[in-house]
């Protein structure tokens, strides 16, 4: 299997996502917004109320992470992905607001794959448990909202060549299901 590496810059456009296939490596640059369990609860409340969001969701990328505090002289602490499936329940609201991609780790539900297909969004996986090395791809951190949530606050991370793998593509493909089907046969 040849490995393709694609460079993408946020905000993401439909054309950016069209050719992506599961297993493709993507180096993402631009801005991503951090949100996980508690942040999603607030985001979805705003979306359902029709209230403005603290950032422009059109073509935006959400990164499921709660970083550790930055050491002096460093931009951010350890900042790897958290388990995405906990945010599955929020996905329809999130992508209907215009968000084009989420970054996390681990597989998602069949329902989420359908929602992503419907709204034209993809799911990227970062390498779970590698938050120290991933911090090297973050060039700037800004607090956007909800400081009271601590690590779960909404932050804007500026990233440079942030390495992710396409885990769900626009065709509804799932790298986890495919990989297991392939490898369980070989063993």
């Amino acid at each position: 299997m040849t490995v393709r590496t694609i460079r993408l810059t946020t905000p993401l456009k439909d054309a950016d996502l069209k050719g992506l296939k599961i297993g493709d490596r993507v180096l993402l640059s631009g801005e991503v917004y951090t949100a996980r369990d508690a942040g999603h609860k607030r985001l979805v409340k705003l979306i359902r109320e029709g209230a403005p969001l603290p950032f422009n969701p059109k073509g935006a990328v959400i990164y499921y992470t709660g970083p550790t505090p930055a050491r002096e002289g460093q931009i951010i602490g350890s900042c790897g992905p958290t388990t995405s499936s906990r945010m599955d329940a929020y996905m329809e609201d999130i992508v209907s607001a215009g968000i084009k991609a989420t970054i996390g780790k681990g597989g998602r539900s069949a329902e989420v794959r359908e929602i992503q297909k419907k709204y034209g969004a993809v799911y990227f996986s970062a390498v779970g448990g590698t938050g120290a090395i991933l911090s090297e791809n973050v060039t700037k951190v800004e607090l956007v909202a909800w400081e009271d949530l601590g690590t779960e606050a909404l932050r804007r991370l500026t990233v440079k060549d942030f390495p992710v793998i396409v885990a769900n593509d626009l065709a509804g493909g799932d790298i986890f299901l495919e990989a297991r089907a392939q490898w369980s046969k070989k063993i």
Partner: protein
Amino acid sequence: MREIDVRKISNAVRDLAIEVNIHLSEGFVERLRKALAQEKSELGRELLQRIIDNARAAREKMLPACQDTGTAVILVEIGQDVHPTGGNLIDAINDGVTRGWREGLLRASILGDPLTRMNTGDNAPAVVHTFIVPGDKLRLSFMAKGSGCENMSRLKMLKPSDGEEGILKFIEETVVEANGRPCPPVTLGVGIGGDFELAALLAKKALFRNPIGARHPEKHIAQLEEKILDRVNATGIGPLGMGGTVTALAVHVETAPVHISSLPVAVNIDCHAHRHRSLSL
């Protein structure tokens, strides 16, 4: 009666908290290198290499290897001839957790109440299990337990007729259901027997076994460990769930006597960071 000042215990907890999160043990990194040699999937090897590189980056940058610096799970084996002095033992442990998290710039991940869900801000309180043992030593075992893998752990009250195959099937199902979510390659702590809560505690204790992959001294349990490991590694889940031959690094089983009508089995999953250390005072 040997007296131990609780400040000593508190300081030890603080040091362990920082140490386990930033420095993955050399023995464990060695196990990851072995996994890299064993893994047949190209992508799996790439991911394992990245995990190994991350362990080095964490040490060099003095950063936690993973942003989920975990729940502080602490086993305290207290010799019955030990008298903790200068304060309350549990308070001292929590004070050590608070200082470790603050000084080590670890992530505050603990909510004071599971329903109202407000962050305590300092990762206290820890989950502490105390055991009274013979002697005049106090042994602390510290684990930074990630939640991604803890969430995928399960317990089932099997029927005695389910037997060994039932145990294997339940563990395999648990790992398959978890898939890439607990950050494989995982380490499995398995508790069999006792009752509902003892099985779970045995599973957690099993994760502390050192060195990783050491076999249980009893032959029939050691054989079961091998069978579980083979079964789990045949699932094809692989590193981070992206396919391959190394889904688990090790399986540790602990058992306890059990009621004639019971066969409780608990599976506690740990991620590929597997952060723990022990010391004696």
